[in-house]
């Protein structure tokens, strides 16, 4: 990955009539980077992708691709290839014709077209499907063809609009792997829209978490998982999701108080930034809770057990806040067992109650 920017989104705004979807949004994507736009539906991620593709006209701002101001350029002139959730294969054409359509529109020589189709088909293992119509293909095969269509165009930037959402779980995992491998081998810039945080975590070099048309956090998957910038990101990333406890900070003994329980947070990285009596939300991931008895542990009862094969999820509660704990698959708990839990404080996150920002 070089330091050069492949795509630059500069202060763009977009509205449908009076509804403002994106407002003054900026985003730089490096050459060869795999950028995932992640967020719940209606957060503006697909709109942003369509703006980059040139399928929507901006209300304000600029889009630069490969150091070229493409704001007013047609989609075909933006060096992009796009893969859609609905595959969007031309139903009346064979796979071969689907792949070659863009090249034929550009007036590419026949020999070159055939060569490119052959390469793409080999790469995606769709050689034997070339003569078929899209209606004769399975979902996974269709999406491969759709990726191939972007591939033959020699696009500098690949845009994926929730490409795996229409597939079943097994195929989704398979194609996710394929896309990751494709990126490894081609090292093109890729921008990938999804609402699936697993896809985001597994594929991305960097994730841009979006909500209400704003980028909430832009960072590597690791950082986003371990140090979520705010409550929204913390809650959105991770499955099962992070546990939250409303609490008050007591500076004198470096505790937070939840109901009538005290938790020692002296090991928290940014403890110096907390003020006495500050209302905070204490967040801890299910895997960062241990079952052990020590001077800092809290006693509670097992309320529900969800075995998931590799892991077991144990549900309990602290001061009537539900808490999930991720344990090894082999662990054995029964309902109403008494357990002592302790939190791994240096892996926790503490948010200000009012601003919802991480401290």
């Amino acid at each position, binding site marked *: 990955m070089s330091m050069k920017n492949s795509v630059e989104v500069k202060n763009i705004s977009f509205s449908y009539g009076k509804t403002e979807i994106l407002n003054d949004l900026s985003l730089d994507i490096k050459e060869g980077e795999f950028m995932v736009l992640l967020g719940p539906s209606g957060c503006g991620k697909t709109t942003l992708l*369509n703006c980059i*593709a*040139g*399928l929507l006209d901006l209300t304000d701002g600029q889009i630069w691709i490969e150091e070229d101001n493409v704001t007013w350029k*047609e*989609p*075909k002139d933006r060096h*992009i*290839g*796009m893969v*859609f*959730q*609905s*595959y*969007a*294969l*031309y*139903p*009346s*054409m064979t796979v071969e014709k689907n792949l070659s*359509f*863009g090249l034929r*529109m*550009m007036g590419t020589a026949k020999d070159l077209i055939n060569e490119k189709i052959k390469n793409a088909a080999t790469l995606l293992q769709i050689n034997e499907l070339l003569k078929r119509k899209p209606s004769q293909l399975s979902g996974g095969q269709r999406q491969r063809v*759709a990726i191939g*269509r972007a591939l033959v*165009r020699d696009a500098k930037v690949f845009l994926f*609009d929730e490409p795996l959402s229409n597939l079943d779980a097994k195929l989704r995992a398979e194609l996710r792997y394929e896309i990751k491998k494709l990126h490894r081998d081609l090292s093109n810039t890729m921008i990938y829209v999804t609402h699936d945080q697993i896809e985001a975590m597994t594929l991305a070099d960097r994730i841009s978490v979006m909500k209400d048309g704003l980028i909430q956090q832009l960072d590597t998957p690791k950082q986003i998982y371990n140090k979520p910038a705010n409550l929204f990101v913390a809650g959105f990333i991770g499955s099962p999701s992070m546990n939250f406890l409303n609490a008050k900070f007591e500076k004198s003994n470096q505790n937070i108080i939840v109901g009538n329980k005290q938790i020692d947070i002296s090991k928290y990285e940014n403890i110096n930034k907390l003020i006495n009596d500050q209302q905070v939300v204490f967040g801890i991931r299910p895997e960062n809770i241990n079952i052990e008895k020590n001077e800092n542990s809290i006693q509670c009862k097992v309320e529900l057990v969800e075995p998931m094969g590799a892991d077991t999820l144990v549900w309990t509660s602290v001061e009537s806040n539900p808490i999930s704990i991720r344990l090894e698959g082999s662990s054995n708990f029964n309902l109403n067992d008494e357990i002592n839990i302790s939190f791994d404080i240096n892996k926790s996150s503490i948010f200000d109650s009012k601003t919802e920002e991480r401290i």
Partner: protein
Amino acid sequence: MSTIPKGPRPKHLTVGRIGLYCFIIMCALFFLMPLYVMIITSLKDMDEIRAANILNLPKELSFYAWPKAWSQACTGFVCEGLKPGFVNSVKITVPSVIVSVALSALNGYALAFWRFRGAYFFFGLCMFGAFIPYQVMVYPLLKIEDFLGIYSSLPGIILVHTIFGMPILTLIFRNFYASLPIDLFKAARIDGGNFIKIFFYVIIPMSTPITIVAVILQVTGIWNDFLLGLVFAGRDNQPMTVQLNNIVQVDYGVAEYNVDMSATILTSLVPLFVYFISGRWFVRGIAAGAIKG
């Protein structure tokens, strides 16, 4: 003895069912009766028509009325039968259908995919245009065509049919295209298609069902038209319907009912044929146009 419920639920013939079938059969008879009368009358000779009951089957089959209606029956002072009218109707219908369907498909495509400024206003205008009774526009249109110098000519009547067909056809095409996934259109734009290329390479190949519907609507509509043909076609291009009227409405001599009947059947053969071969498509298209509004 009671049977244990197992497998499909048994079907019983209820009173409601019987009533329903009776109603359907009566409806069918009601609509088939005129056709029956027409066919048997066209196969009788005039003596038998005068002598016997209208519903009686012919004692003796006589086919002379059919060729007479086709090529000898008199319209005014000319006795060439319906044949020239048939030729005229074909000359009017074929270009009108082709032009109106092609333009409407293009219009519908533009309305559905290229959301230009004022597209909704234009859409509303089409809705409005589709529901105005066309008698209202006959006189102004006549003046316009007169001004353009195409009144009472083949291009004149073709233009009129094209204009009157376009609002409803545009709506039908637009609704069909609006039901296609928009991603297809986006993909085609990224692949480098422009307005015309996308239309020809991507949209038209997908338009078969709706085009069949549009063609059926137009063929039957234009073939059955009487008023516009009478007003705009001119004496030399009178369609079959107008000539049929002239044959049936005799001012002198004897009314030959058997010839009238066969002439009427001959005139309605084209729409009948279209309905019979395409009933399935027709219903499907109307439903598509109606529901996905």
